[in-house]
C-alpha cells in the first residue's frame, strides 16, 4: 500500500461540515479513530444547521468540504432550485438510511383503507392515494408532508413513493421544507401529516408514539446513495493530494463502520461525543440494523438500513447521478434540456475514486455505470459482497444509457422527452 508523504499535501488543516444525522458517522469515526490524522490531516468538523449553509460555506471556501445529500452537487451544477455552483464528489458516504413516517391519524386511515398497508410500502402508498382522493371529495385540506431540502434525496424518495400510488405530489398534497430536528415537533403539532427524513428522526417519532414508518429508502430503491463527500470544483483542482487523503481516511472509516461489531461503538461515538443530541438507544437501533417502524410492534431486522462500505457503496456511480437528474426533470425542477450523461460526468468522479482505491489496494468497480432494478436479494444470496440488491419498489428498470426510456415509463412526469432527446442523442 502506497502511503503518500505528508509534504505532498497542499493543505493539512481542514474544516469539514456535517449535519447531525446518524449517517454523519463516517466523518465522526474518521476523526475519533484517528483516520484523518493517519493521513496527515488536522480536521475540524463543523456542525451545521442547514444544507443551504453547507452549500454556501463549501462554495465560498469557508469550509474545505462537507457531507452533502447525493443529489445536491448535481442540482448545484445545474442551478436547480438554487444558485449554479461547481461542486464535485468522488465519494459516496452511505446507502439507504431514510424512511417515510406518517402521523398516527393518517396511518390509521391508510391501514383502515387497506390492511396490507401495515406490511407493504407499495400497498401503503396505494391506500394513501385513496385516502387523499376521499379527502379531496370531502373538501378537506390537502395533506402536508415534510422533506429537508428542495433538492434532497428525501424529496425525490417521497415523490417516488407517492407517484407509485398514483398521487401527484405537486397537485394532490403539499410538500414543505422543515429542518430534520424539527420534524417530530411538526408531526406532533399536526402541522404536517408525514415526512421523509434520515435517521434518527423516524425512530424518534415512533419511540415517542407519534407515528409509523411506512416505507424505508431501502424499500424504495435498494442500496441507493444517500450522502456524499462533496467539495467545490475549484478546491478539488487546487488540492488533489489533500482530496485523496480525505478519501483514504473516509474509506477506512466506512470499512470500519461496516464491521457489525463496530456499529454500537459508532453509536456511542455519535451520542457521547456530541455529534447527535439523541440517546444511545435511539441512534443505535438503526445503526445496528434494527428498524422500529411501529410503536406497538417489536422492531424488525433491517441489516441494510445503513450501508457504509459493502456493495461498492462508496463508488460514485454515474448512472446514480443521472437518476437524480431524471427526477429533477420528472418533477419539473429542471426544464431546459441538458446532456444528462455529460453533467453526471462533470459532478461524480469515478476515475478519481478508482485512483485512490488502487493506491490503497481497495476493491473498486471497473465500470462507471450499472443497471438499476435488475438484482433482487434472492439473486444475490451467497454472492460477492461487492454487489447489492438494487430493485425499485415499482419493479422498474433503469438500464445503462436509457435515462429517457426510464423517464418514459413513469405516467406522472413533467419531463419533455422530445426536447430531451435532442440534447441526449447518445442515450435512449
Amino acid at each position, binding site marked *: 500500500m502506497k502511503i503518500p508523504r505528508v509534504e505532498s499535501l497542499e493543505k493539512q488543516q481542514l474544516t469539514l461540515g456535517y449535519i447531525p444525522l446518524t449517517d454523519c458517522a463516517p466523518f465522526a469515526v474518521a476523526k475519533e479513530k484517528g483516520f484523518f490524522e493517519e493521513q496527515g490531516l488536522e480536521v475540524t468538523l463543523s456542525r451545521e444547521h442547514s444544507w*443551504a449553509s453547507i452549500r*454556501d460555506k463549501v462554495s*465560498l471556501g469557508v469550509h474545505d468540504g462537507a457531507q452533502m445529500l447525493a443529489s445536491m452537487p448535481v442540482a448545484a451544477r445545474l442551478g436547480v432550485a438554487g444558485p449554479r455552483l461547481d461542486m464535485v464528489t468522488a465519494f459516496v458516504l452511505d446507502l439507504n438510511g431514510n424512511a417515510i413516517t406518517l402521523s398516527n391519524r393518517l396511518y390509521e386511515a391508510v391501514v383502515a383503507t387497506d390492511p396490507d398497508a401495515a406490511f407493504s410500502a407499495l400497498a401503503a402508498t396505494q391506500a394513501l392515494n385513496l385516502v387523499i382522493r376521499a379527502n379531496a371529495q370531502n373538501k378537506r385540506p390537502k395533506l402536508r408532508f415534510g422533506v429537508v431540502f*428542495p433538492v434532497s434525496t428525501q424529496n425525490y424518495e417521497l415523490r417516488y413513493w407517492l407517484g407509485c400510488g398514483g398521487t401527484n405530489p405537486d397537485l394532490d398534497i403539499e410538500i*414543505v421544507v422543515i*429542518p430534520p430536528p424539527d420534524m417530530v415537533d411538526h408531526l406532533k403539532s399536526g*402541522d404536517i401529516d408525514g415526512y421523509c427524513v434520515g435517521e434518527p428522526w423516524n425512530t424518534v417519532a415512533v419511540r415517542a408514539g407519534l407515528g409509523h414508518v411506512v416505507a424505508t429508502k431501502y424499500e424504495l430503491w435498494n442500496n441507493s446513495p444517500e450522502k456524499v463527500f462533496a467539495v467545490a470544483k475549484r478546491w478539488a483542482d487546487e488540492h488533489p493530494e489533500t482530496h485523496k487523503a480525505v478519501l483514504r481516511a473516509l474509506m477506512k472509516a466506512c470499512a470500519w463502520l461496516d464491521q457489525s461489531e463496530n456499529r454500537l461503538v459508532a453509536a456511542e461515538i455519535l451520542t457521547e461525543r456530541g455529534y447527535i443530541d439523541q440517546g444511545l438507544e435511539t441512534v443505535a437501533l438503526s445503526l445496528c440494523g434494527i428498524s422500529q417502524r411501529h410503536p406497538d410492534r417489536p422492531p424488525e431486522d433491517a441489516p441494510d438500513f445503513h450501508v457504509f462500505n459493502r456493495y461498492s457503496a462508496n463508488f460514485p456511480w454515474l448512472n446514480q447521478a443521472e437518476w437524480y437528474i431524471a427526477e429533477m426533470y420528472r418533477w419539473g425542477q429542471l426544464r431546459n434540456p441538458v446532456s444528462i450523461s455529460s453533467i453526471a460526468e462533470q459532478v461524480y468522479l469515478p476515475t478519481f475514486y478508482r485512483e485512490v482505491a488502487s493506491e490503497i489496494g481497495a476493491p473498486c468497480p471497473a465500470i462507471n455505470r450499472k443497471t438499476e432494478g435488475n438484482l433482487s436479494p434472492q439473486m444475490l444470496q451467497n454472492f460477492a459482497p461487492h454487489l447489492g440488491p438494487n430493485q425499485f419498489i415499482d419493479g422498474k428498470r433503469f438500464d445503462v444509457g436509457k435515462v429517457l426510456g426510464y423517464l418514459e415509463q413513469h405516467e406522472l412526469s413533467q419531463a419533455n422527452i422530445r426536447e430531451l432527446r435532442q440534447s441526449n442523442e447518445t442515450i435512449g
Partner: protein
Amino acid sequence: MKRSAKAPLRALMVGVDGPRSEKLFQLLANVGIELIPRSVSEDSLYKLLQELQPELIFVDVNSTARDTLEHVVSSHPALPQPVVSADGDLRISLRRLAGDIGISLYVSERVSPCLLQALIDITISHCHSIGVLEQELALLADNSEIMVAALH
C-alpha cells in the same frame, strides 16, 4: 401585489440576533433601505415572504430556517434569491460576510450587481467597525476601573 420599481428597497432579517440586528438596522436606515419590522420564524416563511415581498433578506448563516427559506424562494423566482455563485471581489466579499459576520444574503432582481457589491462591503465594514469600537470601549472601561481601583 407587485411593488413599484421606484419604491424604496425593503429588507427582512431572518434569524439575525440582537446585536447584529441593531447594527444592520442602523446601516440600512442610513442608506435608505427600509427594514421590515417583523420577526420571522421558519413556520411563517411560506406565508410571510409572499405577503411582504422584500427585495433583500439578511439571514443568519447558521439559521435553522435556511432550508425552508430556500424552498420558498426557489418556488417563487420574483422573491430574493441566494447570492452565492460569484468570482473575484464579490466572492471574497461574500466569504467575509458569511465567515466573519455570519450573514447570508438573498436579493431580488431590483438589486443591481454594483449595488449588491456596495451593500455587502458596507455591511462588512459597518459590522466590523462597530465591533472594533465596542471592543475598544469595553477595554477602555476595564482599564478605567483598574486605574480607579489602583488610585484607591
